[in-house]
């Protein structure tokens, strides 16, 4: 049974068209002119209980808009959304008690009060049983290191501390589903890692279903098993994280540090030099066309070699390729990706 069901979801925003100049400005004040902007264009997917889904796409792709419709604070122009049998925008309050949301751009903590006070308040708002609350506070403080600043007013916290507190706040009531919209934005490497570890743990221990929006591919790789990529409001990929690596990430790079500087080298077919720096060369090849062992054997026979490193393509560069290729990158992977999905 799928927990989240999205069917042909569409969202059009009405945008106020401002005319240029003073006359134009007065004109649009008196007679406003609008145009419609389609932010989400016929998206469909389902998410099962316990699934962890990375939801990515370039800026303005429609991710936040989709998340808002899933949480119920935005009404779709057309299409259906169902969260555990509820229609989020019609039953917002009821839906709200089952979900947790973090919008990384803005904190939902009480600005002037210590973090712990916001937690206390949320306990009452969500009617969290005392025992559950105590356990969660204990666990979250431990894993997210909240202890150092839990008694400090929120306005004094650093971005990373605020974010950690926000994530804890969104999980206090043991939601079934958690929506993260860029919870790692602006954080340093260590803080990001801490949050990923935590998310991974929570997901495993509590079986929380998760939709995770981010621009950091490491987030997705470390915490999600599935990935939905959207662009211009449409789905361009829906499948597992491993699959995308297999399908797109066929290229390997061998970095060779030679004993001396060679201007030109003789390579076996299927391998090309993509970069050169001093005595180092970057050699790219497709992994099923060229055997890495024969390439290395060939090279060591002909040249003196100091060091060799094999580089797998990072998900980062794969995604970049997909974004740059746009919607039509690979049609077989688009459109809800039902066949890719079935496990």
């Amino acid at each position, binding site marked *: 049974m799928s927990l989240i069901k999205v069917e042909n979801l569409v969202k059009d*925003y*009405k945008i106020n068209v401002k005319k240029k100049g003073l006359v134009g400005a007065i004109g649009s004040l008196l007679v406003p002119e609008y145009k419609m902007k389609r932010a989400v264009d016929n998206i469909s997917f389902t998410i099962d209980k316990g699934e962890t889904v990375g939801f990515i796409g370039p800026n303005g792709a429609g991710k936040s*808009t989709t998340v*808002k419709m899933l*949480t*119920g*604070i*935005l*009404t779709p122009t057309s299409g259906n959304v169902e969260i555990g049998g509820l229609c989020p*925008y019609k039953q*917002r*309050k*009821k839906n*709200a*008690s089952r979900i947790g*949301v973090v*919008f990384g751009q*803005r904190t*939902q903590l*009480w600005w*002037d*009060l210590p973090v712990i*006070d916001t937690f*206390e*308040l949320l306990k*009452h*708002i*969500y*009617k969290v049983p005392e025992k559950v609350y105590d356990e969660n506070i204990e666990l979250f403080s431990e894993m997210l290191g909240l202890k150092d600043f839990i008694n400090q*007013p929120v306005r004094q916290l650093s971005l990373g501390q605020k974010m950690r507190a926000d994530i804890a706040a969104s999980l206090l009531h043991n939601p079934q589903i958690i929506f993260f919209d860029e919870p790692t934005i602006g954080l340093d490497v260590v803080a990001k890692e801490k949050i990923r570890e935590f998310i991974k743990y929570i997901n495993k221990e509590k079986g929380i279903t998760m939709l995770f929006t981010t621009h950091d591919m490491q987030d997705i790789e470390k915490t999600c098993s599935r990935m939905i990529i959207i662009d211009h409001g449409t789905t361009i990929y829906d499948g597992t994280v491993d699959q995308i690596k297999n399908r797109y990430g066929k290229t390997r790079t061998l970095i060779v540090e030679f004993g001396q500087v060679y201007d030109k080298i003789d390579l076996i077919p299927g391998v090309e030099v993509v970069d050169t720096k001093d005595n180092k060369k970057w050699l790219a090849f497709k992994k099923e066309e060229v055997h890495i062992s024969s390439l290395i054997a060939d090279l060591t026979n002909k040249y003196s070699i100091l060091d060799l490193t094999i580089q797998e393509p990072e998900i980062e560069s794969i995604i970049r390729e997909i974004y740059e290729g746009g919607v039509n990158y690979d049609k077989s992977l688009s459109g809800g990706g039902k066949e890719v999905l079935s496990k």
Partner: protein
Amino acid sequence: MIRAYLEVAKKSFQNNITYRMDYFAGVINTIVMIFVNISIWKAIYEEEEVVGGVQFKIIMAYLVLSFLLQNIFTMEDYLIEGRVTTGLISSDLLKPMSFRLYVFSYNIGSLVFKAVMQLLPAMIVTVALFGMLPPFSASMFIYFLISVVLGYLVLYNLNFIIWISSFWFYFTFSLVTIKDAAVMILSGALIPLWFMPQWLYEFIKLTPFDSIFFVPISIYLGQIPAEEVFTSIIKQVAWVAVLGLVGHILWKAATKKLVVQGG
């Protein structure tokens, strides 16, 4: 669920404590305003015992009551605007609680804070300085208390309409300023309405403004005939209902706009 709103009020109370300067400023402001206004009226009364049929000691009591009430009736004019302009209003709607009751509880928290921490000291100081007329009678005192509560609700519902307009205008500073001026003049906060020209007085009686300060204070001072007290209170109730209804309709429209057009 009540528990959650009590908790909000408590937090707002605590929030008020955080701003210690604000706290002292509130007490001092009230005392100074009472002092200044009584001095002005004293100058007017210099010659005569009675002006416009009203004795000076009644004016003095009126002013003390008015400024003490104004102090505790101060509300958070930019709470909703802040939530709207920062987009946090979306997070507010995502809580399984009523945002309107949340805002109300928040204001009640400040009200209690002001009543306990500011009203008491300001009252003690001013009564010691200027003395105070006792309520006209015990029953009028009871009506006064009821009328004060209703006066607060009239002002609250009026304010709510202004606050909620931030969904359309985003910045409500000018609106709030106009509202404050209107309340200041028309509610009898500064000048008892007895001294207004007859036509203006008749006009004000058709608005919700006299329900805020003038009616409760007049009841306390016995300036409203006993047989008219009941109608005055009913009029207050009616304004609470009418303004509440307008606020409700605007709130529905505001959330509709939010969920259709996005934050």
